[in-house]
C-alpha cells in the first residue's frame, strides 16, 4: 500500500490527467466545428492541421498518464484493480478508449497530410466528429463511476473480503 503523501500525489496526478484528457477531447471536438462548418478554406485546413498535434501531444500523453496513474492508485489502495465493479469497469473503458486513440492516430495523420496538400479538396475529408464524440461519451462513464463509487464487489473481491474477515477468528 502507498503511504498517504504518495497516495495524495498520485491522486492529484490522476485527477489532473483524467480531466486534462477530457479537456483535450473537447479541444479536438472543437476543431471539428470549423472543419465541418466553416466556409473559409484556410480555416478548414488549419483545423485539420491541428488535429494531429492535439492528438499526439495532448490526448495520447494525458490518456497514458491517466490510465497508468489509475492502475497505480488502484493497486496501491484497498480498492484494488479487480475487487470492485466500478474500478474494473473504469479500467476496461479507459483502456479501451486509450487503445482506440492509439489505433486511430494513423487515420488522423492521413487527414492532416491530406489537408497539407494544397490541391486536395478539404470538403471531401468529412471531419472526425464520430471518434471525438464517442471518446467523450465513453470517458464520461468512468468519470461518473469514479465520483459516485457505486457499491458492488466482484467475485474475486468478495472471496478476498471473505478470507480477510475469516483471518482474525482463525488466528484466535
Amino acid at each position: 500500500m502507498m503511504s498517504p503523501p504518495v497516495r495524495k500525489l498520485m491522486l492529484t496526478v490522476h485527477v489532473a490527467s483524467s480531466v486534462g484528457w477530457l479537456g483535450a477531447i473537447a479541444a479536438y471536438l472543437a476543431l471539428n466545428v470549423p472543419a465541418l462548418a466553416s466556409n473559409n478554406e484556410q480555416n478548414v485546413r488549419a483545423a485539420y492541421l491541428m488535429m494531429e498535434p492535439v492528438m499526439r501531444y495532448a490526448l495520447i500523453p494525458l490518456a497514458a498518464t491517466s490510465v497508468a496513474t489509475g492502475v497505480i492508485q488502484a493497486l496501491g489502495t484497498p480498492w484494488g484493480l479487480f475487487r470492485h465493479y466500478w474500478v474494473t469497469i473504469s479500467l476496461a473503458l479507459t483502456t479501451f478508449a486509450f487503445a482506440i486513440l492509439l489505433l486511430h492516430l494513423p487515420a488522423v495523420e492521413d487527414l492532416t497530410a491530406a489537408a497539407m496538400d494544397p490541391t486536395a479538396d478539404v470538403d471531401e475529408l468529412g471531419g472526425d466528429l464520430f471518434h471525438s464524440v464517442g471518446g467523450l461519451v465513453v470517458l464520461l462513464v468512468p468519470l461518473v463511476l469514479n465520483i459516485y463509487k457505486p457499491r458492488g464487489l466482484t467475485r474475486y473481491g468478495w472471496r478476498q473480503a471473505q478470507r480477510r474477515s475469516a483471518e482474525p477468528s482463525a488466528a484466535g
Partner: protein
Amino acid sequence: MTDRQRSPDKTTAAHPGLPRWVKLLALGTVVVVAVLIVAMLLIGGEHRPGMHNA
C-alpha cells in the same frame, strides 16, 4: 480516482451477483454497440475519419 471516502469491503454470506447498475450499464453498452454495427453496415462497413459525415 480512488480514495478513502467509503469502506470498500462490506460483504454478505453469499456473493450477491451483479449489481443492478452493472446490468443496466451492460445493457446500454450492448444497445450502443448494436446500433454502431448496424450503422456501419448501412454505410458499407468502411471505417475511417469522415465516414460519418457523408
